[in-house]
């Protein structure tokens, strides 16, 4: 009896060895699964970020570059390129914080992430719980880069380089950061995912990117006036080849823009990928056919412009709509933007040189409204069972979308006008007549795009 404790102790040890080992293994397994999911998500998000940057350089650089006259090709490409660098610095220092840190108002973020303080490997569960916040930050940066670059289409061939840099800097602070915060930031007025007062569905930036840039573009075009000789002097694209290459890069890059906005390598990303592609295809065809009927020939410029219009329109809708509505959205966008960039522009006579307003402003607004029509919880149950758009019976969502559009438009109009006034006063926004005639490549940069004789 004295040594009964020995087998008793042995049996206790034997019995109690099992449960902790099993629990630990389960915990390890769960952690490994999460890590695998995170790895997949992060891989996709980093690729998406790269795709979106590619949209600016060389996508937009080529697309816009080919559409201008030869003497301005470098200057046009430089506008996109320099923004890749300059917006990055602003974003790193303070931009990310102003867009995505929680602020004291629903209109702008705070300074918690100044100098990217607290932005590192740890995920930010408010935005994307399975990837490092740094990934989210760098992904969003690429959006911040392309948005101002789009505006350049309106004042192509006549804006002073220095004034453009100042303009874009002010524009980021006055228009982009507030809009990005309102739609995507924690506490933002229009943020549907995080309980904004006016929930607006904007999956990848129809309002934040396209309406703001497109409308700002129109304001710039009106303020700066027409190019010398417009519309009587022929100003044909100097290289449709380059523009077509650029448009194709935009199409491919847009998968990062839209599908990446799922912020995970998920079935939602797939859904957005499919919707994006379908809209691009449908819009390319509808613009092409509309033009074919109108002028007798289907132009390449029309086809590629159509694809961009479809991509713009599907941007807010991409993670909310089914594939067939995506085709419909594309179909409508191709025709509407065709009319905006041709008939309407001609009717009002403004020189929106590369149709930034006609495609991005109009396409973005159209897409935002159609998002309210076609958004369905069958694709994205963002509101946990509550109906999303008209497709779910909630027609009122279209009203919310409209409010989001109006805020974007209002902000863009007022902000851009003020900024133009400031830039004009300090630097003068438009080049001189001699500089415009000589071409911006020489007058602004001292270079020529093509030196075939050399």
């Amino acid at each position: 009896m004295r040594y009964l404790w020995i087998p008793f102790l042995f049996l206790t040890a034997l019995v109690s060895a099992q449960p902790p080992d099993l629990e630990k293994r389960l915990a390890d397994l769960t952690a490994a699964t999460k890590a695998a999911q995170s790895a997949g998500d992060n891989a996709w998000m980093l690729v998406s970020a790269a795709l979106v940057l590619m949209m600016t350089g060389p996508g937009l650089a080529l697309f816009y570059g080919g559409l201008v006259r030869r003497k301005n090709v470098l200057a046009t490409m430089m506008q996109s390129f320099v923004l890749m660098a300059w917006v990055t610095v602003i974003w790193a220092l303070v931009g990310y914080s102003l867009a995505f840190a929680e602020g004291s108002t629903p209109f702008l973020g705070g300074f918690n992430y100044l100098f990217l303080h607290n932005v590192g490997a740890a995920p930010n569960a408010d935005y994307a719980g399975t990837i490092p916040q740094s990934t989210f930050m760098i992904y969003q940066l690429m959006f911040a880069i392309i948005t101002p670059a789009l505006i350049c289409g309106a004042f192509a061939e006549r804006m002073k380089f220095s004034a453009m840099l100042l303009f874009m800097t002010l524009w980021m602070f006055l228009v982009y950061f507030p809009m990005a915060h309102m739609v995507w930031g924690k506490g933002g007025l229009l943020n549907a995912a995080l309980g904004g007062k006016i929930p607006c569905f904007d999956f990848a930036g129809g309002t934040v990117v396209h309406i703001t840039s497109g409308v700002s573009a129109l304001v710039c075009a009106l303020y700066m006036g027409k190019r010398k000789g417009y519309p009587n002097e022929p100003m044909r694209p100097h290289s449709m080849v380059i523009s077509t290459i650029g448009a194709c890069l935009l199409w491919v890059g847009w998968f990062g823009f839209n599908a990446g906005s799922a912020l995970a390598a998920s079935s939602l990303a797939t859904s957005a990928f499919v919707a994006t592609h379908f809209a691009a295809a449908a819009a390319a065809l509808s613009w092409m056919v509309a033009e074919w009927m109108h002028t007798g020939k289907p132009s390449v410029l029309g086809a590629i412009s159509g694809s961009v219009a479809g991509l713009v329109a599907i941007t807010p809708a991409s993670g909310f709509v089914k594939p067939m509505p995506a085709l419909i959205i594309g179909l409508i966008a191709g025709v509407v933007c065709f009319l905006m960039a041709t008939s309407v522009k001609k009717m009002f006579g403004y020189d929106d040189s590369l149709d930034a307003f006609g495609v991005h402003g109009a396409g973005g607004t159209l897409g935002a409204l159609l998002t309210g029509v076609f958004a369905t919880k069958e694709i994205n149950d963002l509101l946990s069972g509550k109906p999303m758009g008209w497709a779910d019976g909630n027609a009122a969502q279209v009203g919310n979308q409209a409010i989001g559009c109006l805020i974007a438009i209002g902000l863009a109009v007022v902000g851009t006008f003020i900024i133009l006034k400031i830039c004009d006063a300090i630097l003068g926004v438009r080049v001189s007549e001699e500089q415009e005639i000589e071409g911006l490549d020489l007058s602004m940069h001292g270079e020529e795009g093509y030196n075939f004789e050399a």
Partner: protein
Amino acid sequence: MKKIEAIIQPHKLEEVKEALKAIGIDGMTITEVRGHGRQKGHKEIYRGMEYQVDLLPKIKLEMVIPDARYDEVIQTLVKSAHTGKIGDGKIFVFDVLEAIRIRNDDRGEGAL
């Protein structure tokens, strides 16, 4: 010596060069130019903006020939560049004061 300037259709260049080579004329300068006489241009449309493109691509041939070969060269040129349609082009003839071979300072018809 005569200088011949011929503005011809770009797609006739090969035929003209071969024909001239066949009669022993190898030396010429060729430039890509744009222009028109009475030939109509074409319409191009970019995003709804119509452009009437009047300046059409042409080829300018320049050559200097000895006086003795003048008739033969003109005949060959006209025959090979001809299509019968508007836009075939024109030939202009100038008197040449001097010709010099840079390599060895040959002068006159010997330099051609």
